[in-house]
């Protein structure tokens, strides 16, 4: 009995053979088992590699981290250039990584997936290629690499990501600044396999106009050890003070000032301006 050989279904090809019409001659005499004249196809080697280890930890958006060895982990660098009509054009340089938009939602396979953009600490978009755009207003941009199953590629328990500061007003109506636009005014802060991913941690942006604070004062909940950056823009000279941590940063009218701290003490702490005595927000550290 001859074996069923499937497939080759296809295509056919073979056509060719056609002509051949008859090699029947030799075959007729021997009558051996059926063999195909079809050449071998590709190997069908089954994969056996691992796609890393799922960690219990999750990122801010609730995605599990997927730990892989640093030597084989993907890396990402990011560079931002102001766009002439506003915002920033960003360019990713990835290694050991391919963008696989069509298999998003499938299982994690090593070295593929997509990137997610976090502007000022909040997830705003995905990138399925190495170029993207961030609208004006953002102060920091973090680019994080995710696998097809939405888990976060991680090394040493920290996400693979890179962060860049989008300093200076991203020329909303761009005043001609030839030298700036030619060279990237926003130096690419790169953190390849970023072992310290949360360098800047969350960023909260506050704006003071007269007696009004935008967003209105509320509570910022932090886990102990989390890093927080406060980015404050006032309309007069002043000083921002974080009680409890006793951290201060001077304010100049219209110029954003940043204050970064690590929430290493639990409790409720107020953030105020010294001169005007405004309550900006409260930090709840647990």
């Amino acid at each position: 009995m001859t074996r069923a050989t499937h497939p080759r279904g296809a295509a056919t090809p073979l056509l060719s053979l056609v002509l051949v019409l008859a090699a029947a001659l030799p075959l007729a005499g021997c009558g051996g088992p059926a063999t195909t004249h079809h050449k071998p196809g590709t190997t069908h080697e089954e994969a056996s590699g691992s796609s890393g280890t799922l960690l219990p930890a999750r990122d801010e958006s609730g995605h599990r981290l997927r730990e892989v060895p640093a030597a084989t982990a993907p890396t990402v660098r990011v560079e931002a250039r102001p766009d002439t009509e506003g915002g920033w054009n960003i360019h990713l340089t990835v290694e050991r990584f391919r963008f696989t938009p069509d298999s998003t939602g499938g299982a994690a396979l090593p070295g593929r997936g997509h990137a997610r953009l976090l502007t000022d600490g909040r997830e705003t978009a995905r990138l399925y290629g190495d170029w993207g755009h961030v609208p004006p207003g953002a102060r920091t941009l973090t680019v994080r690499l995710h696998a097809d199953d939405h888990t976060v590629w991680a090394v040493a328990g920290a996400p693979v990501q890179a962060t860049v500061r989008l300093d200076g007003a991203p020329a909303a109506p761009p005043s001609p600044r030839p030298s700036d636009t030619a060279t990237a005014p926003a130096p690419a802060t790169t953190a390849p396999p970023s072992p310290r991913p949360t360098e800047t941690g969350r960023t909260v942006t506050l704006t003071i106009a007269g007696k009004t604070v935008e967003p209105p004062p509320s509570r910022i909940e932090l886990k102990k050890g989390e890093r927080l950056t406060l980015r404050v823009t006032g309309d007069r000279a002043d000083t921002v003070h974080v009680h409890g941590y006793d951290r201060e940063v001077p304010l100049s009218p219209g110029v954003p000032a940043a204050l970064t701290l690590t929430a290493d003490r639990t409790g409720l702490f107020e953030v105020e301006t010294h001169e005007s005595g405004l309550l900006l927000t409260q930090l709840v550290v647990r």
Partner: protein
Amino acid sequence: MSWTRRIVLAFSVVLAALAGALLTAPGAQAHEERPVTFPDGSGTVPQPRSGEPDLLVCKTDRADFARRISAFPAPVKARNLALLDRCAREGYRHLQEAVDAVDRPGMTIAVLPGLYEEEPSLPKPTGACAALKAPNSSFGYQILSYEQQRQCPHNQNLVAILGKKNLQIEGTGASRLDVVFDAKYQKLNGIRADQSDGVYFRNFTAQRTTFNSLYVLAADGFVIDDVLTRWNDEYGFLTFASDHGLYKNCESYGNGDSGIYPGSASNINDGRGYDVPRYSIEITGCRSHHNMVGYSGTAGDSVWVHDNEFDHNMGGASMDSAFPGHPGLPQNHARFERNLIHDNNQNYYPYVADGTCAKPPVERGYERGVVCPQISMPPGTGIITAGGNWNLYEDNWVYGHQRAAFYLNAVPAFIRGESAWAKQFDTSHHNRYAGNHLGVDRAGNSRPNRTDVWWDGQGSGNCWQSDAGAASPGALPGCGERRGDVSGDTDRLVGEPVKLAQLLVCADYNVQARRLPAGCDWYGARGLQRVETQLALGSALVLALTGTALWWRRLRGHRLAGLATLAGLVGLTLDVVGSTLALTPTAVPALALLLMGAWWTLVGLALRPTRPVFAWTTVALGALTLLDAFDKAVLMVPGIPLSPAWFRLLLGVVWVLWAVIAAGTRTPPTTPTPVPTPGTDSAPATAPEPGEPELTPAGEAAPTPASTSASASEPTSAPTSAPTSASASAPTSASAEARPHEEGAA
């Protein structure tokens, strides 16, 4: 069979044996399966069940689940939430666990939205399963028996459904992308349903295997409903040796062979004509794209394929009889209706050439559009039939192809391992291409195919619609109103020689060795690289040299012969030009044949007096060439077992040898040379006089009264004296060209 046919047959066999010797590379089978036979056909196509499922499969991460169903329509969302509660209590976490819990026919398994990697199935076999005694396929995996599959269900399968009857497996998501089974290239098969009659698959996605995602084997009754498969070394859907099957609303892409493969569908209509009581498998509403071929049907017998879309593959659909071991060969009775088959112009062979396909499957980049074509085929083609009978292709839209809409050739039985003499010519017959919309899309926009038909010319009862555009051959048998009506039918045993040569060259493809035949335009050869043009050029050079020499040495003074030779040279040039990809489907090749035929005919007539046998041979060659032109451009000559091209080819070889001898032999003058000045050298150096009235070569003149003049008895330049009157029969005559002059002088 008449004796002439037998002779032709024997001759064909010799040709084939030669070709076969070239072709028979050490074969490795592409995929080997245990021996299977068709089901007995007593089953039915299963109906979907919509009641409460018997078994549930889900994942436990509620937050993840909530995200997945957040955009579902309210009723679907509510149902899924209810099912999740139930599943959390009594459900399974992997499909295989639920399948294993099936304990009676007619059960339904519902799979909730989520990603299913079936982790328990993944570990490599250990213990007894690592030491099964079974033959190895050429690719390293074992060809397991059904019992061995039961013993070790996960040696090759992510999910194995073995011997379950009327099982329904359905995703409960809002779309088929909400439930994904992902083999991550770690298994040969994604979901295998083996001897599981009545299986019903609905609303999920299966992907990334090293063979095929959804595999139905030996089933009497199956349905594939709204399922997506993608990124497999070979097939998206493979249903083999099965009956009472239905594919509907399915999609497949990114497969190295085909998206949809109803291989060895039950051969229930063997021996019938076009009228059949039923089809074994129906395929409708499916889309198959970005594969090597959208649909393939080695032994795809009695498959009814209607209202599908096959697009952006290398080839839209193919059926064939080219591979051994498929029950039901030769392929027969596929019926294609109202399908959209268009823009199948992908060419994935560069991925073979650049080494991408030599990597392990997981690294090839299928998700990014890589396809590794497993076999040789002509990219840019709508429907390929490589050995098949009684297929109906009607009312389809076939457009936008850079090669051809329809491709038909024969495949002799020994290719599929059958050596019986009577079977060698059992394809391709009675294929009907009628009422299709060629070169226009459904909105009526013009989207021409480069050619509408490519046919090797073999077979009987094949016909094409009369409005087919550019075709090779240019004249095709036409379809009548009713199925079975054919005008201008032919019945040839072998295809056109040049086409066979091309197929022979093109078949020498080897994906593992990264060998892409250089002479074949399927892999990018153009211009002089193509074997057809090389053959045309080679033979044109030989014929041009031979013909010119013949004229120079024997007919130089013969004006008409000179003109004819000139026409012949033009014809040879056109023959080379006409062999290019762009001009093959035009009138150029036939025009070339016309000129060459005229050349040989006239030269033959001119040679009659000196060498009657050779002359008539030349005339015969001319006549065959003219017949060939007629055959290719006007009407395929009925009633002959081989095309005129074959006879022309054979006679041409003889003629060239003979012409070389005729032109090159140096013999004494054999006819009287009535030179007025005896003693001077013979006439070759003297030019014919203007106004020479005698058109025929001198040899013929010898018996004329003029040549019998006194001078006839006066041999001049002959080193040896020859008989004065017998010259006409001399095999060669070195001085023939001088004679008109002599006669004139006389």
